[in-house]
């Protein structure tokens, strides 16, 4: 049985699991929309599209949408399912099958990717009434979906690491909270060059900044390949580190 088939059957199961627990999916949609509405409501008048250069003619909702997309991609629910599986013994059942250990990692990640594609599309559609449009066109739409999904896979991968190491739902949940400082140490309200110097340094050192800027460029501008490439490069590097650590942990899992 090829590794692709192994990953396919495991990700199909993880998708069924997500489909059957809509109550776990609802906050993933509601909270990012809530932040979009609140941020737009609070700062929309401060940054009118007619006189704010960095909005490129769109509303402030378009500027803040990437924060909501990254938030939606960073809930890490899949890692909590993994803890449940470890506690309930099903993870051992899977480990006792003759499949590649990497398939156990990629099965859940692939499902998270598919789930995030759908979630991102829904979020962008829900943002359209707030004056948002995707300036980079169809290719931009596709890149938005792909980049957000890849980020979700990377983030869930790191959450899985915590789950595998601690085998505790509480610790895994707390681990997810690490994203909140990272999300706010970014140019999420204004562009990087308008931040105070200490904040600008922090944002420049924060990898999430480059993913956010890539998503933002796809929404506000035409295809800005430099920015897009930086976003994908950050996801690729974090992804490689995440996969290597996961495979190592799962191989040494007792």
């Amino acid at each position, binding site marked *: 049985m090829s590794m692709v*088939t192994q990953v396919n059957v495991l990700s199909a199961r993880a998708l069924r699991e997500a489909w059957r627990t809509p109550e776990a999916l609802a906050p993933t949609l509601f909270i990012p929309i809530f932040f979009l509405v609140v941020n737009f409501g609070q700062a929309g008048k401060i940054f009118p599209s007619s006189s704010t250069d960095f909005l490129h003619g769109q509303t402030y909702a378009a500027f803040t949408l990437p924060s909501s997309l990254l938030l939606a991609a960073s809930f890490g629910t899949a890692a909590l399912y993994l803890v449940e599986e470890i506690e309930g013994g099903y993870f*051992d059942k899977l480990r006792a099958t003759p*499949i*590649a250990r990497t398939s156990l990692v990629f099965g859940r990640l692939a499902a998270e990717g598919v789930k995030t594609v759908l979630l991102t599309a829904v979020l962008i559609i829900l943002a359209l009434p707030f004056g948002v449009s995707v300036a980079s066109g169809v290719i931009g739409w596709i890149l938005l979906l792909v980049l957000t999904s890849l980020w979700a896979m990377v983030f869930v991968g790191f959450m899985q690491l915590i789950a595998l190491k601690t085998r505790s739902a509480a610790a895994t949940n707390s681990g997810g909270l690490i994203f909140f400082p990272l999300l706010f140490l970014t140019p999420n309200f204004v562009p990087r060059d308008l931040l105070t110097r200490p904040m600008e340094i922090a944002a420049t050192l924060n990898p999430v900044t480059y993913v956010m800027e890539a998503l933002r460029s796809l929404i506000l501008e035409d295809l800005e390949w430099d920015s897009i490439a930086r976003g994908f490069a950050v996801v690729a590097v974090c992804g490689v580190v995440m996969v290597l650590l996961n495979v190592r942990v799962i191989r040494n899992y007792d």
Partner: protein
Amino acid sequence: MSQPDSDPRPAMEESPPLLAVEAEGLVKQYRGRGGTVDAVRGVDLSVCRGEVFGFLGPNGAGKSTTVRMLTTLMSITSGTARVTGIDVASEPDAVRTRIGVALQEAGLDPRQTGRELLILQGRLFGLSASEAATKAGELLELVELEDAADRRINGYSGGMKRRLDLASALVHQPEVLFLDEPTTGLDPASRLTVWDEVRRINERGTTVFLTTQYLEEADQLCDRLAIIDEGVIVREGTPKELKSELRERRGLDVDPTLDEVFLDATGRTRERRAGEVQEVAAR
């Protein structure tokens, strides 16, 4: 990819090993904050093909740790273990294709249906989608869960979950089936059903390695058994041999029960104190 598409089993079918499970000097140590803990301290085991082998011991004696090492789920600190002649540490995937595992917790995914779980299990053992569906149907019939097959597992009773767990361990027709306390927490009727399943599985040629805390279960099901205490094997033989040995050693008129053999082997006695039966260490 951990397995090639073809059967990964080595070419040794001409003379299959007589022993289904062998362990020599098996040791498991954990490193914790309080220092090193010796969970298993040099276990030697031999289980013949086709037998039901019982592995008994008090709580914390090392039963589950030994099973987890033999089933590739836990690393071995030192010593060797072979299942159907294959080294567990160096060829874990080849071992996994030959064994079925049903652990203490009845590890099931509660959000899937019984049928979905068995089909997935079959697919992970290399069956095609249609083969896995057929096999799932057969196994659901075997464990008498056809009526509940398309219901989600979180609605199953404890006994149903245990039977489904057993079925999921059989999806690839394993040569050796490891059952870790398969009847713990079940009511008497469900326990008898599981016993019947184990007998049926064994009659079809599968070696069964069974850990249990229920001595009656061991007496009913096992051809041979070993008793482990504090990480070492303290008795090994057929139930009859173990009873005869104790009868002769103690000069008893009748054969003792397996309970008495167990208590003698683990250095425990039962005394009635203040109206309650208590287990006390006799060493």
